[in-house]
């Protein structure tokens, strides 16, 4: 919704809902790293829009060749709000939804075993990939490769990481495929569900209400019935 609705309303509404959810669920401070991770993107959005917004003439100030505009700044702040709202939504979702519950729920709703496996493996593989990268960096350092210092040195240090990472990942794919086959992964029929995620009436009503509200707002805005600031 933050991206669908133009202006301030969409991102501000999403931000308000997400921040309230974060406060209620007690994950307030833990979302901070997710917000910090958006900083490079946010800074580039602010700079590009404020200084290079196409067609904007309402200059704030002129400093040599630089001429930031009010229109550009407004667009930049709205875009920033959208990015932060999106990042916070992802953060609150991942911090409040255990992966096991997510996968079990998707499976019980009919997502096939391959779909569940792909999502689950993707989520859980992240720490493994980070660990592997760290092992390879240590191995490269032990052989005298400089992976610290100025940015150019760091880039040169990262390049030798790519080869082993890719080749080991490809090797692992074959081994994993065989291991899955050895555990009857391709057996026909439905997998047994052993974890049932509680889904009360309140949650179902709330989900439907949110879904319908989003649909109504989007349709109303597109059709012109609803004019948001």
């Amino acid at each position, binding site marked *: 919704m933050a991206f669908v609705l133009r202006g301030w309303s969409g991102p501000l509404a999403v931000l308000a809902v997400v921040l309230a959810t974060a406060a209620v669920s007690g994950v307030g401070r833990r979302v901070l790293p997710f917000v910090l991770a958006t900083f490079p993107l946010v800074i580039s959005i602010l700079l590009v829009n404020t200084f290079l917004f196409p067609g904007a003439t309402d200059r704030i100030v002129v400093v040599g060749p630089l001429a930031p505009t009010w229109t550009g700044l407004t667009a930049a702040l709205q875009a920033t709000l959208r990015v932060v709202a999106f990042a916070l939504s992802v953060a609150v979702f991942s911090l409040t939804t255990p992966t096991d519950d997510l996968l079990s729920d998707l499976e019980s709703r009919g997502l096939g075993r391959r779909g569940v496996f792909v999502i689950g493996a993707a989520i859980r593989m992240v720490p493994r990939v980070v660990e592997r990268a760290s092992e390879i960096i240590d191995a490269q350092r032990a052989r005298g490769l400089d992976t610290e210092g100025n940015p150019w040195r760091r880039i040169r240090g990262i390049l030798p990481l790519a080869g082993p990472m890719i080749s080991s990942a490809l090797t692992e794919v074959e081994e994993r495929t*065989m*291991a899955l086959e050895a555990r*009857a992964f391709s057996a*026909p029929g439905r*997998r047994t*569900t*052993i974890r049932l995620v509680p889904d009360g009436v309140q949650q179902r009503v709330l989900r439907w209400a949110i879904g319908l509200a989003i649909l109504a707002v989007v349709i109303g805005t597109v059709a012109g019935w609803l004019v948001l600031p």
Partner: protein
Amino acid sequence: MTHPETRAPALRLTGVRYQYPATTRRALDGVDLEVRAGEVLGLVGPNDAGKTTVCLVAAGLAPQSIGGRLEGRVELGGQATIDLRPHQLAQRAGSLFQNPATQLSGTVSTVWEEVAFGPRNLGLTIDEIVERVEWALGLLGLAGLGQRDPTRLSGGQAQLVALASILVLRPACLILDEPTSQLDPAGTRLVGAALADLAGAGATAILIAEHKTDLLARLAQRVAVLDGGRVVAVGSSADVLADDRLAAWGVEAPSAVRIRRRLADAGMALDPPLTAAFDDLEPVA
């Protein structure tokens, strides 16, 4: 209990030749082997002798999963593996590979659920899954690890979990490719004891490729030596592991045999004969 030799082979390879995809050389070149229910057949040989390939072919994973060209016949429980689908193969032959990290599904958060992964794939009832998982964890002494994160285990623990994940499918045949390569001596003994229990119960045939000949001396009734994709010797573990040609084949003899040889070299009398070295060994179970 029926002696293994009188039982029908659970696994039989007849004239097996196999070539990996995009290669010109045969990895296996005329392999004949059989393993009966209740029997442990050890497979030894130098690196690149074809031990892993034998395991892949015996489990039906080659060529079904990895491609390549197979000649000859591979049977599990009397049925050709080429006629079986992957999930049917999984229930007849449990395969365990060298690297435990790639054998875990990576999609669950506890060891218990990891072991339950295979039975869930088969759609078994929850009661049966619980019974099988508890049995497999108990057999390998893993009951205390049930709630641990499988990605945070030591190499040895992960290998035991991978083994439990195969045993839980209760296959008639176990095909193990260096299952103790990442285990410490205590872990090796634990796995060896579990495998001996399984084989001793008379229902499971075990093919185990292993560099640790000390383990095979205690565990296997028969041993086959593989070199260059061919079986160059097969017989009772006492005979094969005490064979003078073992070193030439790139296989280290068990420590009991080496000690007796050193004593003989030093001029000390060797009575009883060399093969009696195995009489002194305690079985793993």
